[in-house]
């Protein structure tokens, strides 16, 4: 097999001559993965298939058209429907006769895999390849074909592969900006996954649906779906992170800031280190939500490694809010408006204006025990037709909301701040301390809950071969966790 591939490469020098050394090994890897899937399917061991998917992701950068084609010739029965479909997506490298040759000779040596798992895996591989090659329209067609095929397979061992396929299905449509076309399809798939108790599929599809709705700003529908869809223990950390992120977004829009903050922070915390883009997104939203809540995020938030640049606009925004300078706020908002609109946080930033005023007001109330309303208006740079009346109403609202502790003397048109007492004589520190402790305990509990123990590990008398296999897997997993480049957020 390897010889044939090399031969083919020799005749197709420009595209992949430089990688001829690595190609055979890639194909070899792919074959190993295929056999892994096969054993997993026969033994009904989902973990093997999970591992296969993980290995594939590691391979994707090395994947070449020729390799993929060779693998498909290897794995699929020549002349089968899937084979015909998939090989059509792969470039034939101009020499059709040679191709046919390799194909026919290749098909002789291999057992005829009729496993649906292998077929689905081939779809996945080609799909990933197409997306990496930025051939999005073909990817879209390919993914649609794979989904049509998936609907007819009801095997739990396919679930892992299927969930990846769903993801790329939606991703390819997003890239071609046709997400709305597949919403119905996704709903149907979600239904199917629920009926088949494919929880991983449900999770993935629910996230894809939420993403789909949010893409079109259909927050209301997203929330309705989210609240109605069945919930269960999360299976995949990545999917759970995404879910939390979408949940945070929905809640932010629906003015439930406290809950939103919790979800967003959790999402940022749970996300793997490698998923930088996702974490930046989470942080952006989290910063805004915290500002909306009247909190000022710590400087360290913006100084996180690799995020300084991306978070600069939000840092400046935070600064404006912290100072309570409406003017500065305006300039910042204008300066970065393009960033904000691409982040789709513009509407939230409009909501922030109110907070800026309030912060300013608080600063005033701390500084002055008594100040006239016109001065307040001046300090806040209210430039409306009747600044004093405006200031009066703003102050009144702030007092009612409990943002400042003051009274208004309407007759003399001034604001009287109350004495700020010693905060350490109140229960405030205790409450703050308690909330921190509760947070730590909660974190600990969650960590304990997240621990996983292999079933029956204590009595399973494993053979030497099995032990070696397990150790290898564990090492791989450790490496994988260290790298954590699984998901493209």
């Amino acid at each position, binding site marked *: 097999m390897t010889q044939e591939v090399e031969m083919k490469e020799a005749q197709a020098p420009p595209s992949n001559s430089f990688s001829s050394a690595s190609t055979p090994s890639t194909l070899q890897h792919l074959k190993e993965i295929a056999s892994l899937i096969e054993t997993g399917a026969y033994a009904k061991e989902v973990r093997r298939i999970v591992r296969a998917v993980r290995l594939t992701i590691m391979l994707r950068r090395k994947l070449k058209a020729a390799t993929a084609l060779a693998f498909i010739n290897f794995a699929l029965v020549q002349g089968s429907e899937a084979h015909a479909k998939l090989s059509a997506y792969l470039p034939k490298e101009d020499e059709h006769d040679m191709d046919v040759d390799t194909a026919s000779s290749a098909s002789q040596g291999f057992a005829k895999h009729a496993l649906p798992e292998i077929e689905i895996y081939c779809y996945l591989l080609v799909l990933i390849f197409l997306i990496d090659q930025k051939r999005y329209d073909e990817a879209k067609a390919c993914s649609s074909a794979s989904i049509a095929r998936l609907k007819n397979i009801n095997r739990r061992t396919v679930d892992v592969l299927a969930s990846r396929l769903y993801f790329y299905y939606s991703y390819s449509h997003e890239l071609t900006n046709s997400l*709305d*076309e597949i*919403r*119905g399809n996704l*709903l*149907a798939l979600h*239904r*199917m996954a*629920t*009926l088949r108790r494919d929880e991983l599929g449900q999770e993935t599809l629910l996230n894809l649906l939420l993403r789909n709705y949010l893409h*079109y700003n*259909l927050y*209301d*529908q997203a929330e*309705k*779906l989210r*609240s*109605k*869809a*069945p919930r269960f223990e999360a299976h995949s950390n990545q999917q759970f992170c995404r879910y939390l992120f979408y949940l945070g977004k929905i809640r932010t829009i629906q003015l439930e800031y406290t809950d939103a903050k919790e979800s967003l922070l959790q999402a940022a915390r749970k996300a793997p280190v490698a998923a930088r883009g996702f974490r930046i997104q989470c942080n952006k939203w989290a910063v805004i939500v915290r500002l909306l809540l009247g909190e000022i995020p710590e400087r360290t938030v913006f100084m996180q490694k690799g995020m300084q640049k991306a978070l600069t606009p939000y840092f400046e925004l935070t600064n404006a809010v912290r100072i309570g300078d409406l003017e500065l706020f305006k300039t910042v908002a204008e300066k970065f408006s393009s960033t904000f609109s691409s982040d789709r946080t513009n509407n939230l930033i409009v909501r922030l204006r109110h907070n800026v005023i309030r912060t300013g007001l608080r600063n005033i109330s701390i500084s002055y025990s008594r100040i006239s309303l016109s001065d307040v208006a001046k300090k806040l740079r209210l430039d409306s037709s009747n600044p004093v009346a405006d200031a009066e109403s703003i102050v009144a609202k702030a007092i009612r909301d409990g943002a400042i502790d003051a009274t208004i003397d309407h007759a003399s048109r001034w604001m009287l701040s109350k004495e700020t007492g010693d905060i350490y004589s109140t229960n405030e520190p205790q409450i703050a301390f308690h909330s921190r402790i509760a947070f730590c305990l909660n974190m600990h509990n969650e960590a304990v809950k997240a621990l996983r123990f292999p079933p029956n590990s204590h*009595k399973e008398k494993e053979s030497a071969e099995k032990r070696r296999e397990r150790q290898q897997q564990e090492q791989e997993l450790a490496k994988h966790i260290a790298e954590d480049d699984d998901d493209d957020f």
Partner: protein
Amino acid sequence: MAVVSSASGLLAMLNEDHPALKLHALHKLNSLVNLFWPEISTSVPTIESLYEDEEFEQRQLAALVVSKVFYYLGELNDSLSYALGAGPMFDVSEDSDYAHTLLAKALDEYASLKTKSMKKNEENANIDPRLEAIVERMLDKCISDGKYQQAMGMAVECRRLDKLEEAITRSDNVHAALSYCINLSHSFVYHREYRCEVLRLIVAIYQRLPSPDYVNICQCLMFLNEPEAVANILERLLRSSAKDDALLAFQISFDLVENEHQAFLLNVRNRLLDLKPRATSLLGHGSVLTSENGDTVSTDATAAVTQDVHMVESSQVPNGTVDPNEVAYSEKLEKLKGILSGEKSIQLTLQFLYSHNRSDLLILKTIKQSVEMRNSVCHSATICANALMHAGTTVDTFLRENLEWLSRATNWAKFSATAGLGVIHGGHLQQGRSLMAPYLPQSGAVGGGSPYSEGGALYALGLIHANHGEGIKQFLRESLQNTSSEVIQHGACLGLGLAALGTADEDIYEEVKNVLYTDSAVAGEAAGISMGLLMAGTSSEKASEMLAYAHDTQHEKIIRGLSLGIALTVYGREEEADTLIEQLTRDQDPILRYGGMYALALAYRGTANNKAIHQLLHFAVSDVSDDVRRTAVLALGFVLYSEPEQTPRIVSLLSESYNPHVRYGAALAVGISCAGTGLSEAVSLLEPLTSDVVDFVRQGALIAMAMVMIQTNESCDHRVGTFRRQLEKIILDKHEDTMSKMGAILASGILDAGGRNVTIRLLSKSKHDKITAVVGLAVFSQFWYWYPLIYFISLSFSPTAFIGLNYDLKVPRFEFISNAKPSLFEYPRPTTPPTSTSAVKLPTAVLSTSAKAKSRAKKEAEQRALAEKSSNEDASSSSGKGPKASDKDNDIMQVDNAPEKKAEAERSFEILTNPARVIPAQEKHIRFLEGSRYVPVKVAPSGFVLLRDLQPEEAEVLALTDAPSNVSSTTSGAGNPASQLGSGSSAMAIDEEPQPPQPFEYLA
């Protein structure tokens, strides 16, 4: 806008006043519900109110929409009820997830409703007619599409016998459908009464067929306990002039006998006799019956009662004949009676076990030598192991050779040793009593022997006649009446219980009860068990009587005996037993709770009933008494023996319990349920337990392992060899605990039980429970408290043989093929002395030759014995020449076969000769040769099979002549009663002689 992004517009329309608008909205929603169900779900109340609005025209459409929304929300119950409301709008045949899911839900719902209403005995209590209509539509569709098996399954599940009948009768292969249905009823119908109903239906359908399958009908009828119908069928078959019908009748009877339902068989037999009055020989038989009674009452002589009956009958029947048809009929009836009484099968089994005995005396010798003199536990365990190894073979060479060693058994050990003889001679109905005569209590003469050996002998008689005690009951009763020694009472009670197992004989019950009321601990315990054995499976009110006494008495032994007895009474009664089980398991006395565990085990034996398993697991982890917990786990083995693969999984956690009692129970549970299967998981579970830290756990695990591995040889599972070596090591180890040593000795006995020709089998081939076997194992598991009960395990031994019989119920020469490597199923190789002494630097050559010489001597002795016997036969019958010669050839062949086999490459098949050893694992490889002279009536790979002779005019060559009893009766060919009479007496003459002929011993 290409795609509508929200359904809010349509939802708003629902609130409009105009019905047309609402209708339009509903129509739209119905088609869009799959896209917008999250949105619509918030407005469900509005749509619901539309459905409830009587004036609204399209209420059903509203219902449909609501149903769909609920479906998407995962509320299948609500969805279903609205779908039913939608009536015709809900399209059953629609090919969508929605329709499929709801249909499945509807079936489930319907089935559970039906089951519930059945439990409350309400007919069709509040079942929605619409639901019923849907289910019926589904069933009809299945039937019309030709998916009969699905239809049958659903019909059984939904308790729709009418539909079941329809499905069966309309299927293209009614016979296949019926057998499928029988399977279904046994493995999936958990409710006993309902199963009876299903079976009744099956029988009804069978009988309507042009060519009914009588074998299956009779099996069903047996389960339904309808002896009348069985008797009628048998009678009809016998009356028919065709020989095949008679063969069929014989086959049916053999199959029935295999299920060991004594009371039922007796009933069938009596009814067959009642049918007789039409025949002219009524008079004769009447006198037979009376003479039987007369005989048995007065009997004191050594001759077995049954034989008397035989003689009387055979002499009388010919006298009364007038019509040739009647002669033929009564002759056939005679044979049939022989089969139904179990005598025929027992006799054949005995002959088979005797002739094929391959027990390895060297193992016993090793055990004997390594066991310490003074250790009475191991001593009696060795005797017991010997008994088990030779169970049913009548070979007591070992005992005879070691009489002095044997005499070291005193007191209860003596009791066991004597009882062991009963195991060895198990099934030797004719000579049983004469064999035991020296030990039996002599009437009149008091103090003739020790009460222990007398008691043991009575127990032995019970073991010999287990479940076939017609002939011996009377004698045992008298013995019981005539004694006041509690040891003899103990033996007599056990013997009676065994002999009259499950017959519910009132008189015997009363007598045993009297013994119980003497409140003597030793006798009372046996009486309790005996009462249970008598009433086994009858679920009679006697149980409450026994329970009351158990509360009264102070003796733990009696309470224990009674609680086991109570458990035995509810054998196989399933739900019927629930009240009693409840009573027992709630009791304050742990011994009664312990009985409750047994009651659960026996009532739900082999059903794998979830409720029972649940209850047992609960007790296994929560009871305060170790005994109860141990028994609860052990009981799981009984509940699960029909699905042995499940047991290791279920008890795997328990086998790691910190509590040794629970571990012990887990080991035995696996042993019981996986007995004779050689199941790999079972062995893996037991392996670590055989080296447990606690001695009695090791004991249990060793015994259980032996039960699992019985008849498995090393080429099937290499762990068998390891296990045998482990046993040897434990036995030889001086520092091993007595408990585990005893376990190892017993295990070696069980492993090679019955001359390596029996297995432990709790299910008959037709998947019925073998009551004797199950009861035997249940009482056996009591050996924890009382060692003599170990012998009860012999009840569960069933020979692994193919025995083909011709019309005369003789064993003709007949060959068939086992399509597998012979080494897979061959006997384990006999042990050789060097293995034990290889460490010592002795010239091994000497030892091996001496061993060979020894074995040769043994063979020679055997052959000489044969020759002796056959010369005897020659004297008595002239026709014995042919078979004898062939048989000798056979033996010689076997002798030199062993070396030959090793030389050449192993063949992939093996030709077996009737009667042959066919172990359970081998059954699937058995093929019958095309074009052979005999054709089996029923294609069965083992057990008793009637053979149809295709060349009746030619002389038949018979096999199986080297039997310990009735030898010449089988060889003397023609079945005419006169010669049977003669042969009977000659057989007696032969058997008067001791088995191993002494004169030849020193020549070797």
